[in-house]
């Protein structure tokens, strides 16, 4: 648990100091969703949901959006990614980028819609094309380092990486 908490903290700090400054068209990349996505790919839907919940809750503490919303979306995202990729070959090179792209966009969409339902109507008034382009492309690029961090974190917890074969583990990422 300590390693996972440390990884969440590192990602939060990187997001809030470096990533927020990389704004393109008023939008910056979003590392938060990559945490449940990579956890789910490495250790299944339950771990994905747990990591998504705690990562979301940590980000909720410093974001101006409704408290608990990131935790809810992170939890659902982790579970969904883990369940949907269960049957996929974990060694497939396309798996991480596709999961990062589809997962991040779906999470942003869900986040905006739920926020609007909670009275934050401005959350659906943003430029979704710019959001999808920036978050989608950056997630595909950044999923690899985040996955490496998450692999280290989960290995420290003694998790059985059921979705990652020994062959895949010996690879670069």
């Amino acid at each position, binding site marked *: 648990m300590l390693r996972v908490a440390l990884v969440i903290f590192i990602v939060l*700090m990187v997001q*809030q*100091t*470096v990533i*927020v*400054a990389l*704004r393109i*068209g*008023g*939008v*910056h990349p*979003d590392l938060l969703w990559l945490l449940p996505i990579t956890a789910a790919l490495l250790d*299944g*839907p*339950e771990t994905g*949901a*747990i990591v998504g*919940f705690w990562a*979301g*809750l940590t980000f*909720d*503490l*410093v*974001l*101006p*959006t*409704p*408290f*608990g*919303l990131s*935790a*809810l979306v992170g*939890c*659902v995202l982790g*579970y969904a990614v883990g369940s949907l990729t269960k049957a996929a070959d974990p060694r497939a090179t396309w798996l991480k980028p596709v999961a990062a792209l589809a997962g991040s966009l779906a999470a*942003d969409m869900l*986040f*905006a819609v739920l*926020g609007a339902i*909670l*009275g*934050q*109507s*401005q*959350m659906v*008034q*943003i*430029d979704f094309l*710019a*959001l999808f382009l920036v*978050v989608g492309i950056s997630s595909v690029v950044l999923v690899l380092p985040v996955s490496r961090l998450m692999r280290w974190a989960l290995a420290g917890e003694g998790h059985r990486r059921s979705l990652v074969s020994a062959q895949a583990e010996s690879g670069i990422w």
Partner: protein
Amino acid sequence: MPRSRRSRRTLTVIILIVLSLSLISLDQNTRTHSLTSGVKSVANDVYAPLRQGVLDVISPIGNFFAGAFNYGSVQAQNERLERTIGQLRAAQLEQGFEQNQLREITALQNLPFLQSLPTVTAQTQDEYSSNFTATITLDKGRADGVDVGYPVVGAGGLVGKVIQSFHHTSIVQLITDGQSKVDVTFGNGNQFLGIVDGQGPSSSMTADLVPPHTPLHKGDRMYTSGLNAASFPPGIPVATVRTFHTSAGASQETIEVDPAANLSQLAYVDVVQWVPST
């Protein structure tokens, strides 16, 4: 997969979802909002110095590269700033007399004038931390006299208002945020009224509820009206008219406006210690 493991997995996810929904409910309920706000306040007090520490470490590296790549533009910007400072000094001397007159008139009419209101100068720590809101984080909070609802002004005019205040930090909703609405007055003698609506961080602001064919000019200034238990004291520049037209049969004029304040330069802002009169 064994049935028991699948059941446990489902139960874990259900518990986490229920927990998230409970936290959202606590945050949304006005009676229990103080609980989540208190937790966020404590977290921000811990997080803000850590974040600043990280920034202090990485900023010199970033500044080195930015300086190396942008030396020419920085020099040109410096010259422009020096010229602007000279113009402002001259204007300040001219305005001294007029400001005294205005202060006397507003005092006579018992109206608050921004320059007579106490302010707290704050440094911006963080901008647009979420893609879904137009907010900035300031390095001043409740302990420094910054409370929820206080207007925030910057160079040129209104920047926004404080929506969350923690012990030593606060969050300001910018006037470009989709939730922002500011009652404004404009025209000769300020005889027209309207509402400046934020449309999100990457979209133009609009001025709404302005009757069709209201006489306007490009560059016209709109000021806070201070009417109807407004959220802001009167007379703060809010926006300037960029485009306007009245469509056939429309019930209001379509007006696009730009913020009067330079929202791309918010290193320092003033929080006005002003609360609406109820």
